[in-house]
């Protein structure tokens, strides 16, 4: 498909930022460089559940596209990112953050996982991705920052670990207030922890039903939806929080477990066994 037609199609599918796609058509002539780097917060001490999930989703997507990327951990990754969210990739001269824009960026370079989908399927994929973002990601943020136990024992200490006193306290509380304000704005402030777990359960049920017995969500090839779901579910399963309930909700759906294992085996264990798999599977689990 010609690049112009691709841009047109992506507009129909309702991608955000058609003008960005068009501008990247000019850069798409450059191939994917060897030194592309993905930046995320420090793995051992700093990164939190939601950021780890987003980062893993992007890494999974890039591996599925067969694009090499080197992962670099920085304590100020969140502030380096142009949108304020991690992860972001530095490719050539470009800096792109978050999965959505990264997918479009790679599409402009000619790599895409969702080419084989027709319009209906693409719309469906978008809908499920929105579901994961609105439900799973928001639930992760809620549990990290709005649940007092988790915030005090895990989130604030980890978030502020690279800084010295009193800056660490200021930044941690600032982030907490910011997330709580966001939860207020979207109406999650009134929810209790039980309701959030219920929402997660329902989300997993919808995903499980869609997945069924297929290896991936669409046909036999993974798409960005698979990468996103894998990122979130795998991180939740391998992260120890103050309670295990979140992981339990997911474990009750066996096809989702099998799905995570399958992707891990296909895309993450063939590269240097040990460093990469141990790296992300540990997650923010210190407790």
């Amino acid at each position, binding site marked *: 498909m010609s690049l112009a037609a691709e841009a047109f199609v992506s507009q129909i599918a309702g991608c955000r930022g058609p003008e960005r796609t068009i501008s990247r058509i000019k850069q798409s002539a450059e191939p994917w460089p060897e030194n592309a780097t993905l930046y995320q917060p420090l793995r051992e001490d700093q990164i939190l559940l939601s950021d780890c999930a987003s980062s893993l989703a992007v890494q999974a997507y890039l591996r599925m596209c067969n694009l090499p990327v080197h992962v670099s951990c920085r304590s*100020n990754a*969140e*502030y*380096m990112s*142009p949108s304020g969210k991690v992860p972001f990739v530095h490719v050539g001269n470009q*800096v792109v953050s978050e999965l959505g824009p990264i997918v479009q960026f790679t599409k402009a370079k000619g790599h895409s996982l969702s080419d084989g989908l027709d319009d209906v399927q693409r719309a469906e994929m978008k809908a499920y991705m929105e579901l994961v973002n609105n439900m799973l990601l928001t639930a992760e943020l809620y549990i990290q920052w709005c649940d007092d136990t988790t915030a005090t024992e895990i989130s604030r200490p980890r978030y502020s670990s690279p*800084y*010295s006193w009193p*800056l660490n306290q200021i930044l941690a509380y600032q982030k907490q207030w910011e997330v709580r304000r966001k939860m207020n704005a979207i109406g999650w402030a009134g929810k209790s922890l039980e309701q959030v777990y219920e929402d997660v359960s329902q989300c997993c049920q919808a995903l499980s039903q869609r997945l069924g017995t297929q290896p991936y969500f669409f046909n036999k090839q993974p798409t960005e939806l698979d990468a996103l779901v894998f990122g979130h579910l795998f991180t939740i399963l391998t992260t120890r929080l103050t309670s295990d309930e979140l992981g339990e909700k997911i474990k009750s759906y066996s096809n989702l477990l099998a799905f995570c294992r399958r992707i891990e085996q296909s895309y993450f264990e063939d590269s240097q066994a040990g460093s990469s798999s141990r790296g992300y599977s540990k997650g923010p689990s210190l407790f």
Partner: protein
Amino acid sequence: MGTVHARSMDPLPMHGRDMGVHPDDMIEVQEAEQETKQEVLENKDVVVQHVNIEGLGRTKEDLLGYEISEVFHAKNLVDVMKKSHIARQKLLRLGIFKEVEVVIDTSDGADALPNGLDVTFEVTEMKRLTGSYNTMVGNNEGSMVLGVKLPNVFGRAEKLTFQFSYGTKETSYGLSFFKPQPGNFERNLALNLYKVTGQFPWSSLKETDRGVSTELNFPLWRTNHTLKWEGVWRELGCLARSASFAVREESGHTLKSALSHTMSIDNRNSAIFPKKGALLRINQELAGYTGGDASFLKEDFELQVNRRLVWDSVLSASLWGGCLLPIGGRPSSIADRFYLGGPTSVRGFGMYSIGPQSEGDYLGGEAYWAGGLHLYTPLPFRPGRAGFGDLFRTHFFLNAGNLCNLNYGEGPRAHLQRLAECIRWSYGAGIVLRLGNIARLELNYCIPMGVQSGDRICDGVQFGAGIRFL
């Protein structure tokens, strides 16, 4: 007996009235018995019996005792007038009086001696609270600035000032408390609390500093010393999406807690167009041992010597230098490094646009030196002499400098060699205008030389305004 009203000896108007002293006038004021009075006035021994201060409201008297104590030691009338004048200057320097007038009278009362004098300082205190409101426009931003000043808060010349600036892009504020030592105004303590934001387009960087500092100033023999502790929360960010990745990597929050010491000797006759004298200022800053993330030792110095030549022209030479040693293996931050270039340092180059750079953003360097040689002359044909024309000078200059990063594994000889290679220099001429007592404007024609790849030059006409010039 007649009243002797001693007028002050100010040559320039200050806060009081402009007066010249005319001993002849004294004699005119006298009524009859002129010859007898003349005897009393000129050089006969007198004793100052009382020194009073009238008009005090909230000012505590013990503070003023030190300033006026010298008057008691006067031996004759001329001496009394001189010492009263000095005491008046000292009282005005405290910054708590709007006006000070001196009245010298012969003593009255039961214990009055025949040659006794009473000196009275009539003071007008400043109001408890003064405010100011300005609007400023500049650099694509408009802001309103509100200032509040409380002079003499607790009665001993303490001063509290607050300034708040609310702009379309940024807000900043500063609160400052100043307390001098009673009797020793040069020894003082200042506490500051501030938030300032700055935008640095030459590095595509914006910086927000929120900090607190305490500062102790004291003179020691002929030098002035300042000891300061400062704690700053710095937030760095990219000014534009097109900022280079090297600047993007510096984004984020850091905390700097630093102790610094400054020593300065300044015997120039003026800060702006000195005709003679020299200035030496040496500054050290040690960060990291009192907390915070930033850890470094920073040294910098400033030297300026001036000498008068024929025909009212002045030759001035200046030298600046500094180096930054990161401690503990962490790399230095872009906010701590030195910058070079521009109308206030090496003229002929863009603002802070010399040295290490990445994709057009200047990153600063860890060591630098800069030197300047200037010849200042009055305007040709001296228009507006003794008036407006005296605010201008023409100057011919030669500037040179270098800025680089050092690899601290090498020895000092390698560093000096590095600083001596690839020297940037420039020469030219221009006109300088003096603004008040602190700032100056320059309009120069510059020819930059020794330009290295990556430097941004500004050859031809360059305009500069500022306080500190090379």
